[in-house]
């Protein structure tokens, strides 16, 4: 177990480091002169060169990388070119907002997806199964901006059930904030529902077909007991890991959703940073997204291994 954890964490750290290299290189191989970005199109080349020197962006890449990395580990990503503010002061609130939105989406979708998958598996091959799988699949593959727009049209404009922006007026309470977040969370829910349901269904079917389930039935246990005691536990374990990997897609979706709903989260921050070619901000945002993803998968793996006796108690004999 300890071995497993150490190995897993070591992997995460290596991956993180590689990610930082990728992100850094990405931002530096890409065209764009930092000084020029700050001073704008109309500044003189001399001023641009001056600023570049001040910022240290004329140094060799490895030196720049080390500078950046040593800052990054302290959550200091330098200054945004556009906002001329420390990047971290922009990231913090944005990340918090995004996490709120993601949390709302997760809280809705995880139980829904799992239950949907379980129901589908229990009705394998029947119309209910087909309905859940096909509608889940359709929801999963339709881009968020499409479903988002349709939802805005329907729920926000035609029947005015939800506000069409995501940000609650300043000073509103938690419930109001939640109310504002439901509509933006729905497209994400649509995307994730099919995916989670699918995994849960597959896990259920594996478990339902497993010999040990047969053993349980042949013991004379009722279907209920078999499913609650023997099937669900083994079926849903893999779902945990999969749900965590979905944070990746979730953040991808946030870029679009936050843009549509004008929600000041990490996705919108990234999108505006991209439009403005604000590379320090892009770097930091991408890095933060990567970290969130890696932490989520790491946590999922740890949970998984804690719940799975095979890993928790080490190998056979």
């Amino acid at each position, binding site marked *: 177990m300890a071995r497993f954890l150490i190995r897993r964490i070591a992997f995460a750290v290596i991956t993180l480091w590689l990610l930082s290299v990728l992100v850094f290189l990405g931002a530096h191989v890409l065209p764009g002169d930092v000084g020029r970005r700050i001073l704008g199109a109309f500044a003189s080349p001399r001023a641009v060169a001056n600023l570049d020197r001040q910022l240290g962006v004329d140094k060799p890449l490895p030196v720049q990388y080390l500078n950046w990395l040593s800052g990054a580990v302290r959550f200091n990503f330098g200054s945004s070119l556009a906002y001329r503010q420390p990047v971290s002061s922009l990231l913090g609130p944005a990340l918090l907002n995004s996490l709120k939105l993601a949390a709302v989406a997760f809280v809705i979708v995880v139980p829904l997806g799992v239950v949907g998958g379980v129901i589908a598996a229990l009705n394998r091959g029947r119309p209910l199964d087909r309905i859940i799988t096909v509608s889940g699949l*359709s929801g999963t593959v339709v*881009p968020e901006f499409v479903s988002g727009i*349709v939802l805005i049209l329907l729920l926000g404009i035609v029947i005015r059930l939800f506000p069409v922006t995501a940000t609650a007026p300043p000073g509103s309470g938690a419930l109001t904030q939640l109310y504002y977040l439901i509509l933006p969370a729905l497209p994400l829910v649509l995307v994730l529902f099919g995916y989670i349901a699918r995994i849960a269904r597959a896990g259920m079917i594996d478990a339902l077909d497993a010999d040990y389930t047969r053993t349980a039935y042949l013991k004379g246990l009722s279907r209920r007991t078999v499913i609650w005691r023997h099937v669900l536990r083994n079926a849903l374990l893999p779902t945990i890991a999969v749900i965590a990997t979905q944070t990746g897609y979730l953040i991808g979706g946030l870029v679009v959703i936050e843009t549509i709903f004008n929600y000041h989260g990490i996705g919108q921050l990234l999108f505006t940073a991209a439009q403005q070619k604000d590379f320090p901000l892009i770097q930091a945002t991408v890095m933060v997204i990567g970290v969130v993803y890696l932490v989520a998968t790491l946590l999922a793996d740890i949970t998984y291994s804690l719940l799975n006796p095979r890993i928790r108690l080490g190998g056979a004999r």
Partner: protein
Amino acid sequence: MSTASVPVARPRRVDARRSALAERLTLLLHSPTFLIGAVIVLFWIVCAIGNTHLTPYDPLATNPLGKLRGPSPQHLLGTDSLGRDELSRVIAGARGILVVAPLATVLGTAVGTALGLVTGYFGGLVDESLMRLVDAFLAVPVVVVGLVALVALGPSTITVILVIGVVFAPIIARTVRAAVLSERDKEYIQAARLRRERTPYILFVELLPNVMGPILVEFTVRLGYAIFTIATLSFLGFGIQPPAPDWGLSIYENYVYITGGYWWPVLFPAIAIASLVVGVNLVSDAISQVLDR
């Protein structure tokens, strides 16, 4: 030397197994999932091929004064913000996506397959380091990577293809690697090593055909995602560029008008995208199910 009494064994099952393939095909043709998916995809393929021959109007012909007209007998799906016929644009829009998305997916699949074959087969350090790199790559969502890359390289159809291809490669590499891992310890690989085949031969002649199944399934799944991603990038303004009648781009261009009640130039391309992705995925789903049997 042959002894008369020892009968020669004939492959009596050849026909049986061949017909198993035929049965799979029939099964596919009888699967409603597949049929619905295939009909949708075929419909769009016909649109893509027919292109302007099928459209009632030139999809690029503007008419500023006739803009944002609702659906009517002249313009069945209405007109967009520049007065172009929406039906024509939806039909003509099929071509772009049906060229770009498959090209990007083919690129990604080719690169990913090569990568997956190599890492899976060699294992060890090569595998570990490449997989960590892939992990790092995958820690960032595809749309984000695509967005950032397109910002840097400037949007154009070619860059979209390259970027999506490159982004998909590691994902496909993973699938291929997993398939290779379960194949590479099979004894036919050892048999090949025993006759001292070169590594490329082992990779591409021995291994590759045996992992085609997962690759095929992955390809179709990725194709769906490619359409998804390209549409999303276009919607963000970083994908296919005007005046192409691209669906994602159309939504981007007309999105501002929906609150005014001008839903048609947004809804119809949205339906087009949704139906195509759903169609591709239904087909993919059906294929993988039949392959599983």
